[in-house]
């Protein structure tokens, strides 16, 4: 099976976020968004055994968190675009609402589990009809045709569907982060120094920008690029510091995004 749904790590992005926020080690009043973002990023690193559709959701939430974090780092809001800010709050509220929903069903699931465990201690009687009543019983084959029988056999011989994660709906962005990395290790050594804005000028989709951003972060983590932001709202400067001659750049561990 390609992907075991019940991994010991987090089932989904909300799961992780819930854990990070409500985890006992974190004092309610001292919750640091930075730590949450860090937790997210480190979980992203562990995603190598996950499927891409899971990773995508993680990325989306990580991106929202990074946006929130960026906002929080701002000294004042006088020069902030009000629309942008409202949108950010709306996103935050959506996230909050989804988290609450997730938590609600998590707790409901625990109760269902308890009910099932209690009920599972009692076994039903399914003995069915005693032989002496069989003659009384109506003929169960009434209305069943030989064709029905053949169809039933075909059905019985058909392998039961193997549970699998359907990735079709994420196909268009399937290899985006991987692709972005591949593009960047070719593009960056050539340009040497550039800005994030320049890197994403051809990308209109929000998700495309996010995966490029994550690809840049990945390169930064590997020490292949230097990042610099001269001022708040300043352009994110990206400088290639890895080896030149892109073929030499080993991205094999970036398979985590496949």
């Amino acid at each position, binding site marked *: 099976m390609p*992907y075991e*749904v*019940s991994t010991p790590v987090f*089932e*989904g*992005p*909300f799961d992780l*976020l819930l854990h*990070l*926020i*409500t985890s006992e080690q974190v004092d*309610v*009043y001292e*919750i640091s*968004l930075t730590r*949450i973002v860090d937790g997210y990023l480190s979980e992203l690193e562990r995603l190598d055994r996950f499927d891409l*559709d*899971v990773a995508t*959701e993680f990325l989306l939430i990580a991106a929202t*968190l990074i946006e*929130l974090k960026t906002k929080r*780092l701002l000294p004042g809001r006088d020069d902030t675009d009000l629309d942008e800010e409202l949108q*950010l*709050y709306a996103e*935050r509220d959506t996230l*909050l609402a*989804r*988290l*609450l*929903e*997730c*938590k*609600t*069903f*998590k*707790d*409901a*699931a*625990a*109760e*269902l*589990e308890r*009910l*099932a465990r*209690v*009920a599972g201690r*009692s*076994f*039903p*009687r*399914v*003995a*069915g*009809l005693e032989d002496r009543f069989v003659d009384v019983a109506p003929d169960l084959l009434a209305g069943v045709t030989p064709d029905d029988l053949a169809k039933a056999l075909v059905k019985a011989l058909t392998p*039961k*569907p193997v*549970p*699998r*994660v*359907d990735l079709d709906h994420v196909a268009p962005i399937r290899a985006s982060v991987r692709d972005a990395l591949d593009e960047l290790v070719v593009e960056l050594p050539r340009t040497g120094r550039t800005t994030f804005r320049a890197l994403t000028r051809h990308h209109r989709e929000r998700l495309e920008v996010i995966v490029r951003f994550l690809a840049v972060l990945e390169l930064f983590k590997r020490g292949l690029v230097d990042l610099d932001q001269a001022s708040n709202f300043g352009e994110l400067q990206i400088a290639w510091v890895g080896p030149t001659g892109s073929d030499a750049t080993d991205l094999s561990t970036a398979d985590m995004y496949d």
Partner: protein
Amino acid sequence: MATEEARAIEAILMVAEEPVEPQLLGQLLEMNPKKVEALCSELAAAYEAEESGFVLVRVAGGYRFQSHPDLAPYVERFVLEGQSPRLSAAALETLAIVAYKQPVSRAQVSAIRGVNADAVMRSLQVRGYVEEVARDPGPGQAVLYGTSRLFLERLGLDSLDDLPALADFVPGPEVMEALEQGLRADAE
């Protein structure tokens, strides 16, 4: 002492393979289903008082005999197999969403869980806990899912009305506050 009707109920439940609805018992015994329910309660109480090894329970809309939960260790030894494997946390959460939101589409379930729920939904369907109950009348006509009778049986519930109220699980103010704090965008 035992009435003919109570004895007939015992006899019928002894040969039934599934929970028998009080309406059906009433029809067979030519008596009011309410009266049937009262009789079944009396019978259940009598078994309880006699410390019987079995119980008479109402589940999935009907009555049936079951082994007493106390004696699970013995019965488990006898049954050996048959105990269905435990559901994963993912399966349980998905099942909870279907149970409370039914009728619900796969896409809606996935949206709530934040991960694609297709595989889990399919395995719940194969196990018989979840089934197709309708089609979305809107465009696309998505298949809508609900819980099955087997789900009720496995949880020992008489009907969906017996599910604990979802409101009971809505996080309390301290969790809300924690979540809000965690996502605060204000500058500090």
